[in-house]
């Protein structure tokens, strides 16, 4: 079987993976790079649980061929977790009970991070819009919005 070699930056480290040509970024992360925080929910771009950042943009890893991230910068939930600590979004999700079964949580946090990186103090409506591609079937949307709003406030955003 033919193979391709793809070099990219993964969570700040230069990474090279050799995979079969049709391999998605999701499969490459989970099964080749052994980074399992990123989840497969529908594997057809419908649920957002595989959301990672590619050059800071929220990206569905299940629909992205690994070949497309050649030379790009990929960030997963593992990449934003400080050793022995929590990213402010992780802390807010933890404190606000914004995770129930936990399966959609990695994608939610990455989509929220992409939003806060480009807009440090979004309104609740802007947060809801940014997370609209991420499904939570335990229906914990309100605590998720609360958690992201908490971080937006810490970023210096007022009560808008």
């Amino acid at each position, binding site marked *: 079987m033919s193979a391709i070699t793809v070099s990219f930056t993964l969570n700040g480290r230069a990474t090279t993976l050799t995979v079969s040509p049709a391999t998605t970024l999701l499969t490459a992360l989970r099964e080749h790079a052994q980074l*399992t925080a990123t*989840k497969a929910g529908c594997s*057809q771009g419908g649920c957002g649980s595989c959301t990672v950042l590619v050059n800071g943009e929220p990206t569905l890893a299940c629909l992205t061929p690994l070949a497309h991230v050649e030379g790009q910068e990929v960030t997963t*939930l593992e990449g934003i977790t400080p050793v022995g600590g929590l990213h402010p979004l992780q802390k807010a999700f933890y404190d606000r009970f914004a995770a129930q079964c*936990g*399966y959609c949580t990695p994608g939610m946090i990455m989509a929220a991070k992409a939003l806060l990186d480009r807009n440090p103090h979004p309104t609740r409506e802007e947060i809801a819009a940014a997370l609209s591609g991420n*499904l939570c*079937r335990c229906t914990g949307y309100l605590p998720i919005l609360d958690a992201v709003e908490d971080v937006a406030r810490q970023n210096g955003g007022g009560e808008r």
Partner: protein
Amino acid sequence: MKQLGIVGQSVHRSDGLGHVTGRTTFIDDISYPHMLYISMVRSPVARGKIRSIDTSKAEAFPGVATVITAKDVPNNLYTILCLIGIGPNDEPVLAEDEVMYEGEPICAVVAESEEIAREAASLVKLDIEELEPVLDVEYALRPEAPKIKKWGTNTFTYDGKDHCQIRFGDVERGFAEADEIVTGTYQLSPIEHAPIETHVCVAKPEPDGRLTVHTNTQALYFTLDNTAIILKMPSNRIRMIGGTVGGGFGGKVDVLTEPITCIAALKTGRPVKWRWTREEETRCSSTRAAVKIEMTDGVMRDGRIVARKVRSLQDAGAYHRHSPYGAMKHMVNVVGPYTIPNVWVDVYCVYTNRQPSSAMRGFGVTEASFAVEVQMDRIAKAIGMDPWEIRLRNAYRNGDMRPFGKITEDATLIETIQAAAKLVGHELPPELAQMHSNDEGGYAAAQRATA
């Protein structure tokens, strides 16, 4: 007084840190070296006779380890309800001579990768003689409908009858006395649980002949028992390990992945993973049952409900799973938390050639509550009474006999309604605000007297 340490405090979830860091281990996060993958060949038709299954091309496909058919299953029957004394078992693990719904598993292709397994699965040749499917519960009960179950009817048999029932008091007398007759028909569609995590199972054969099984089942010991029966293996040879379930809602209690994954592991001597696609999760997992409820109530102008007659059809789909049990829960709950002296309930657990229905969050009860509470609003409207009042007037109280023969001991409906009224700022008249579940007076007592 001693300060309480936990009560009244907000306590972090014990799994919260794992969830927010992505370190919680879900079953799909577990992999073993030299692992194989399953892709299932499923029925393309809703009802048919299997003439032949030709797996030769799939077996010859490079990278395929084996193909599993019904003959590989030691005891090819799901035993979901036999463990709680309800039978007969009716669902094969893998279809043998007939298929009963579109998506029914027929044979499992086990291969080096999911891609190879899927490609090879597409090479399995099925010869199925399509038969007229039964897709509607009312049609299923008609004499001219094909009888789809092997025992020759389209219903589950309860005590020799084609339905389960409650007979309490005399409904016809109640209707004759009533000032108003209020009727309603309530229908619910099947509902898919749609967990974000699909069904996943990993089975690993151990050198000592045991199996280690990781599964996202919601019912670990139930799954262990069922798997042991299907494998004809003592349960102490199977180490069944559960874990965090990525959304269940009742949809992961039907033992749908573990037996086949175990058989694949035993047959190949290698670890095997089976994870369902989103399409399989949506089209082949159990759903909440579709329900049709016809309700007729006899009501007095003062608000008392004096008779209730219910005919309810529960769509089990092709096989039992948990539906015969759900229908019985439905039967006892379709009277609602109200004291009605004359009750007649017939609940049919009906089979159709649809995706089987089973457990989902209060199944049987949720559907009943929907019908009952919409009906209460209709009754209130019919006699011009406040919807709060109609419920409080008829609310069951401690000491009231329930139609299924149990004395009420733990009624809290009155207090719950009063608290709800307070929360939404609805002021109840003093008589209603002072009611209590331990009251001897009121309409319930009057009903007891007339009954």
